[in-house]
């Protein structure tokens, strides 16, 4: 298999499956298609890994070598306008002048750009380096897994909805188009092509969010659409500005510049960052991602983990080396750090599980953006690693919450008390997922640690990250505490889940654990080559992955590090001890919790107590939510205001 086949497979296999899913509305056909596609996509991802390592870390594919009988560039442009027309049509249908306006403005800008002065399209149309590879792996491994999960989930979901005609063909078709666009987006080298794929993901996310078709879904979908169209507009302007500054649309050539002086280039980069901000739902654009919660769970899992929002941070990380160390970089870092602390603070006050996850996604994306803004070796390493770990853990957590929601009919954290008894399998997996989001030795925390160590030179960013991570600890540990609550039960019965769902979760949780244990391998294999390649010639503290991660300063001195391996050993030791502890906890040792001696006679779970006048009352303990200090309604306006100001300052600085 050569690189052309791989490329074609990565883009066209999902498209083909989309077509198949759309035309054949039979569950067994659909399930087979989803499963086979997943296998092929895994294989393609594996093929890319193999191919990339054997071709020296970079695969380039030029237009000529494709030997296409027609002008692809022209076709892309055509599609671009069709897409904008379609979006404008959506805006028209739903009476949203803003969307129409944005799409027309985009179309006009593009048209003017194409007509005035002949645009020289870059030679090399696809470049796959290690960063693309990482994204490819995330998209083509986690994406298909979520679609497999969706086959089980959507059946249950539609069962609850009592639809006359299944809308699953449409759903799966859009999912696959989405994956195809993501794959193409991370490989392309042509900024104007990237714009096209960018807009395809925008459109797909609108279609997926409004999938259920009720009023709320459509409203939130439209919000996602206009915010992302705003980003798309920034992207178009960025293309125009960058072309005027450098005379090329090639991402590679853009990356060859180290930004030193002012001029047009910083403005273009700033606009690209702006586009990235909208797509990754940074403050003040977070509302679309929160609204996206109305969609079926697989959609949220997909939007939050490997696709959509990751496209935004991918773009920012991609161009980060260009503005590394400049004021623009610092402002991007401040914006990201602010999002991190703001979103984490609001997450404390949320009792809706999915909203907590959403805010945590926003916070983590903020941290990625922040690291990209800092742009040093360590910071970029943290950004890339966080992209990987966050994608896996977040996909897992969304699937867990979706499963829990199907079972208990609520996504409120307080309703998840004693979940362990009802669904031990899902609970254990969810807890591992949550722990992997906040505690060492798992990957997400390691990146937070790297981010802190990278941010010591920027006090403002630093204090944001520090306070943000304190907040993070609060909302996760509250949630973990709730779902782990349980009374004594002699036996636990596993819940019955569709195989597609339980298998996906099991695989993902194994992925969380293995990526955590093997962080050095991952770092050495894919992250380190990317960092050395993109930050060539900047002498500074580097990372070294042996048995963990170590920071080595320019002078070769070890200035920080952590061998996560030993700590996984401790965790395993605990797990090994658990069966023993479990067996030695016999029923006769079991006592109800202390309720001041007022436990009722029969109740051994500590749920009821004798109240005055011989009545029986229930014990109800809620978590602290600090609605006064961290309430969403209190913080959001201020946070949006400050974030808006930061973005203004960012543009003010570069202009």
């Amino acid at each position, binding site marked *: 298999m050569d690189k052309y086949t791989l490329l074609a497979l990565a883009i066209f296999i999902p498209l083909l499956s989309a077509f198949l899913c759309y035309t054949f509305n039979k569950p067994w056909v659909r399930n087979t298609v989803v499963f086979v596609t997943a296998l092929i996509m895994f294989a393609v991802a594996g093929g890319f890994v193999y191919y990339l390592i054997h071709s020296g870390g970079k695969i380039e594919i030029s237009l000529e070598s494709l030997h296409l009988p027609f002008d692809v560039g022209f076709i892309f442009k055509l599609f671009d306008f069709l897409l904008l027309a379609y979006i404008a049509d959506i805006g028209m249908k739903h009476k949203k002048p803003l969307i129409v306006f944005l799409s027309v403005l985009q179309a006009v800008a593009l048209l003017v750009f194409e007509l005035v002065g002949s645009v020289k399209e870059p030679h090399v149309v696809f470049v796959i380096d290690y960063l693309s590879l990482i994204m490819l792996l995330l998209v083509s491994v986690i994406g298909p897994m979520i679609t497999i999960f969706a086959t089980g989930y959507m059946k249950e979901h539609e069962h609850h909805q009592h639809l006359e005609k299944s809308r699953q063909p449409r759903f799966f078709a859009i999912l696959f188009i989405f994956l195809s666009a993501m794959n193409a987006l991370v490989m392309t080298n042509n900024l104007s092509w990237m714009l096209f794929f960018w807009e395809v993901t925008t459109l797909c996310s609108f279609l997926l969010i409004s999938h259920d078709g009720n009023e709320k879904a459509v409203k939130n979908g439209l919000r996602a659409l206009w915010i992302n169209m705003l980003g798309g507009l920034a992207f178009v302007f960025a293309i125009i500005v960058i072309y005027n500054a450098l005379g090329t649309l090639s991402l590679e050539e853009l990356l060859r510049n180290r930004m030193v002086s002012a001029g047009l280039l910083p403005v273009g980069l700033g606009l690209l960052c702006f586009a990235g901000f909208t797509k990754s739902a940074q403050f003040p654009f977070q509302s679309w991602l929160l609204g996206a919660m109305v969609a079926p769970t697989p959609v949220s899992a997909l939007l939050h983990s490997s696709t959509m929002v990751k496209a935004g941070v991918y773009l920012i990380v991609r161009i980060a080396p260009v503005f590394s160390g400049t004021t623009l970089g610092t402002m991007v870092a401040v914006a990201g750090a602010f999002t991190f602390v703001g979103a984490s603070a609001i997450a404390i006050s949320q009792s809706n599980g999915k909203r907590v996850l959403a805010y945590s996604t926003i916070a983590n994306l903020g941290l990625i953006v922040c690291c990209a803004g800092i742009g040093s070796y360590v910071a970029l390493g943290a950004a890339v690693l966080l992209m990987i770990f966050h994608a896996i853990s977040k996909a897992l957590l969304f699937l867990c919450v979706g499963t829990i929601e199907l079972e208990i009919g609520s996504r409120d954290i307080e309703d998840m008390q004693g979940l362990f008894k009802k669904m031990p399998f899902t609970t254990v997996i969810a807890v591992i997922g949550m722990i992997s989001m906040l505690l060492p030795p798992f990957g997400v925390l390691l990146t937070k640690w790297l981010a802190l160590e990278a941010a010591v030179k920027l006090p403002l960013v630093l204090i944001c990250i520090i306070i943000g991570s304190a907040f993070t600890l609060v909302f996760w540990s509250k949630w973990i505490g709730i779902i782990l609550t349980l009374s004594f039960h002699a036996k636990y019965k596993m819940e019955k889940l569709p195989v597609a769902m339980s298998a996906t979760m099991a695989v993902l949780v194994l992925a969380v654990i293995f990526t955590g244990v093997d962080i050095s391998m991952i770092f050495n294999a894919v992250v380190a080559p990317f960092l050395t390649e993109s930050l060539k010639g900047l002498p500074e503290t580097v990372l070294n992955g042996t048995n963990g991660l170590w920071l080595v300063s320019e002078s070769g001195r070890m200035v920080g590090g952590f061998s996560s391996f030993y700590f996984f050993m401790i965790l395993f030791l605990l797990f090994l001890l658990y069966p023993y502890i479990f067996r030695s906890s016999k029923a006769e040792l079991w006592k109800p919790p*202390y309720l001041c001696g007022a436990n009722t006679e029969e109740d051994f779970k500590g749920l009821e107590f004798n109240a005055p006048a011989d009545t029986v009352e229930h014990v109800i303990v809620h978590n602290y939510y600090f609605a006064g200090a961290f309430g969403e309604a209190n913080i959001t306006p201020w946070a949006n205001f400050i974030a808006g100001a930061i973005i203004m300052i960012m543009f003010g600085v570069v202009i």
Partner: protein
Amino acid sequence: MGLVKKSRIKSPWVLHYDCTSCNGCDIETLACLTPLYDVERFGIINVGNPKHADILVVTGSVNKRNERVLRNLYNQMPEPKAVVAVGACACTGGIFKDCYNVLGGVDKVLPVDVYVPGCCAKPEAIIDGIMLAASKLEEKAEALKEAKAHA
């Protein structure tokens, strides 16, 4: 084994429960914590939580309403554990013995190990009683072990 035995005697943690006391005995029990008597020198701590306690100190007579609370508290204490009845009321029902709602002394409900008489019991006597109960803990632990071996 000697170490555990010694530790048991040296570290009796106390749960104090007031049944139907006139509060006289409670005042004396709490007086034990004051610098004058300072029970902490014997390792005695008033823990206020049955799950941590070794010795249940009961003052006042048992009545129909607090019987189940008393049982519940005793039940939640981990073995080995002992019960000290402090004051005439806790020993026999005292002056409340003939009240319509009173069941009698603590031994009507729980196995009492040490009776501390007096109305009110003197702090010195209470401390003595607790220490005596502490020295009985080991015996009880042995007995439990044997009972387990037989079962």
